[in-house]
């Protein structure tokens, strides 16, 4: 977001609103940390299949197995972002 746009956003808000955190520069060596919630029966199986087929993907993805993606709880999503993950992938 440009500084101009930020100013526009700020200007639109009332004074009590907390300041919006400026977007930080991304360091060149930065790697996003991604957490995935995967259904035991399909997406987790697909992750296994990716291994069987020797498909390569970024090692920054960690998978938490759920019995079904219906098990996902908003609190899991909140917790993950609170803990600093950069992306969340729910697959099932």
């Amino acid at each position: 977001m440009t500084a101009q746009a930020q100013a526009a956003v700020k200007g639109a808000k009332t004074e009590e609103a907390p300041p919006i955190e400026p977007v930080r520069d991304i360091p060149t060596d930065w790697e996003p940390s991604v957490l995935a919630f995967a259904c035991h029966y399909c997406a987790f199986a697909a992750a296994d299949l990716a291994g069987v087929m020797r498909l390569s993907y970024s090692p920054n993805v960690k998978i938490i197995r759920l019995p079904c993606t219906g098990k996902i709880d908003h609190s899991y999503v909140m917790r993950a972002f609170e803990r600093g993950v950069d992306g969340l992938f729910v697959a099932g």
Partner: protein
Amino acid sequence: MNEKKNNVKRGSVLITGGGIGGMQAALDLADSGFKVHMIQKESSIGGTMAMLDKTFPTGDCSMCMISPKMVEVGRHPNIDIHTLSEVTAVEGVPGDFQVTVKEQPRYVSHELCTGCGACEKKCPKLVVNDFEQGLSKRKAIFSVLPQAVPHTRVIDPDACIYLQRGRCKACEKFCPTDAILFEDTEKEYRLDVGAIILSPGLARYNPEIRGELGFGRWSNVVTSIQFERILSASGPFMGEIKRPSDERHPRKVAWIQCVGSRDPRNANPWCSSVCCMYATKQAVIAKEHDGAIEPTVFYMEMRAFGKDFDKYVDRAKNQYGVTYRRAMVSDVRQEPGTDNLILRYAKEDGALVDESYDLVVLSIGFQPHPDALEFSHIFGIEPNLHRFAKTTQFDPVDTTRPGIYVTGTFQGPKDIPETVAQGSAVAGRSMALLGEARGTEITEVELPPELDVREEEARVGVFVCHCGINISQSVDVKKVAEDISREPGVAYSDDLMYACAPDGQEKIKELIKEHHLNRVIVASCTPRTHAPLFQDTIRDAGLNKYLFELADIREQCSWCHMGQKEVATRKATDIVRMNVAKTRLLQPVETDSIAVISKGMVIGGGIAGMTSALSLADQGYEVHLVEKEDQLGGLARNVYRTLDGSDVQSFVKDKIAQVKAHPRVVVHTGAEVSNTGGYIGNFKTTLTNGDEFEHGAIVVASGGVEYEPDEYGFKDSDQVITQRDLEKRIAEGLAGTGKHYAMIQCVGSREEPFNYCSRICCQDAVKNAIAIKEKDPAASVTIFYRDIRTYGLREDYYQKARDLGVLFVRFDVENKPDVDVTGSKIRIEAFDAVMNREVAFTADCLVLSTGLRPHPSTERISKQYKLTTNADGYFLEAHVKLRPVDFPSEGIYVAGLAHAPKNVDETVSQALAASGRAGALLSHDRLSVSGIISKHNRDMCMSCLMCMRLCPFGSPFIDEDGKISHNEVICTGCGICAGVCPAKAFQVNSFRDDQIFAMIDAATHDIGASV
């Protein structure tokens, strides 16, 4: 039953041969209440599959699949393994056989040997290692393979210095448990069993007979089974690809196909069915091991006829750069000084070339054991022309002697899934024979009492598996174990070579006791296949089986991050750390059991469905057979003869009559399933005609349809017909004589968007061509083909067609024949790829070999039962190798064309397998419910009804107090209720919120909450 005199039925079955087919039969039978005696000639079970490195077309590790099965067989209370044993005589009648068994001395006590291997280290005698195909040496006291079951060592009496010359006894001196028994002797005893299953497996062709290929003379000419061992992580080169002469890494590697197959002069006339695919697999895996390798496969015909096989070959070509050269190698010579090999062959244009390779792999074929004839004699069964067990198209697993069944490669060359399916099929046949004797000869399992660990602080034990080199090549497993040992709650952490092997499991049990571990993590492969095995292991050590987690660091780490050892090791540590965080919070779970409705439902009334229904009914279960059409019979109604001339029409008529007459089969024609509710063991189905019934198992045999072509003027001319039309005309009597029939293969198959082989069309063409030539020798037949895929013993008929003068013209897919129909004559022009020139024919009739397509109902059925299909629209089984007739959804099985195109005998085998599997399920009065279910806390519940609205299974309900209660029996543990519950009154066992939070926190331990 024609043996009226003897009404004795024994509740036990004898299985000769502990390969994958024998093991499948043993497990199906033992799980459903039969005692099994497994007779194995070698010192360990496992068979050929245990020698393989990987399997096609998925590239799964063979040992990782078979090892858990071997362990399961080895530990099953209803299976007795008799190693180093052979059957010498069989007497009696179906239901009551008396079998004489001769057991060779092992010289090591099963009871005392711990498998520690101290003896083997000290044994001074080195012998050629047969299991490693002569590529390495073993000791005189040895274990055939590291994962051997039983893992008791064995002394080779021909090599043992003491047994030969009377001194040494080094093993005895160093054995810590005094397990060596030099005084052991040969034993002979009698076993009384109800049925006999023959699964002795195969022998391989000795390629020295074909001297021109240089095997035995040039050390860098190896057989395909030697190459499997070269590829294997536990093989002579530890999975590194080296050639024998100088252990250099070969660059150019050639596979020569059909060595010992399709060659009546020097070898065997049949096709071995598997070599095209295993060579492709070996080329792909070799390339994966070492990217510098340039593989070339020299072949006559690419017989990729199975499900998803053509796609695998395409991937080998396009993705892995495997070169396929259609040529027969006439000569292999060693290049002086380099140990390289010069292959002489004719190129497609006919020019002779010499090309140098670093390593040559001979794709050797299957053949029956040298003592197959004697074997047939002992069991009193008839062999066929080629010394395989004689069976028929319609009874493919029945030998000529009632009560004796056959599975696997002793019935004919075949691959693993077909062998496994036949294993379940023979189990089903035995259950039908012995039904009422079920449960009479088994012993109940006695488990140690469960330790109460609820109040104890967590003491987690972590076992990080090397999986040979599968994990350790990309992950530093020792470092993972060391780093994890510092995690809170971890009381023990170490690495293991093969956690799933018997010695690995024993070690886990010992360490649980030694370190008072109360929760266990194995970091190895996927929990989807291996968790039950380890759960049983910790249960044996007195822990509740839900105090276990499997950290997947193979499929989801080492295999995805090859060549990145540092990051892969870090990720593996993170995965284990996440599981440690969860495991600390695990609590024991008590499991419930449910009653099973001992009835089956079969969807589809074709050959597969009728066979399946009859088999279940013969096993003693009521079956509902649901057929959408008004009459039974399916596609087979349009088939007249099989390739060997068997009469399909009367077979179908006979089956229909049997189904209709069977007191336990209820036929619902003109009906489809409108809804099925429930779950394994307890389904309730409503049909479109209003019929309603309950059942415990489902067999989906919904069939396929024939492709209706619009190619080659089919829609425009009556003279352009399909093989099915021709078959009907032949059955009705061909009009006229001396006519010319032209046939074109692969119409609508093996091309996008239907890029798969329909498997039946080559047989159809050859069958009809033979029929025409036999009825009218003056007629001529020309078959335009891409590859003739008369696999297995079907090759005889390809040969017969050629002997009868049928002309075969090969074309390439880019250069299909041109067809011009004018008046009564059809002109066909093609480029003959064999003669390398244009050819033209005039025919009276053009016959198109059209393939098969999935049945239109497949999509609906897949939605109804939440089943998946492959890219071509056929149902996808739970596992392409080891669970060929199971669906991932429990209690549902698949058979016939619904699964993939196949021939009649294969359909019958598969249908018998599906009913064998379903019968094993229905034999239980009660099934244990999974412990992974949602638990409802009524005190926290506000009865907002969210759960009730969203549960797909209807397990939450309003009870007599007007509040929500939860029916745990039909809960599948999906956790939708837990996700939506605002009060968090639902928590799923082993997936509780606190456990998931702990995993999230552990996954983010290095980024922390500060961001």
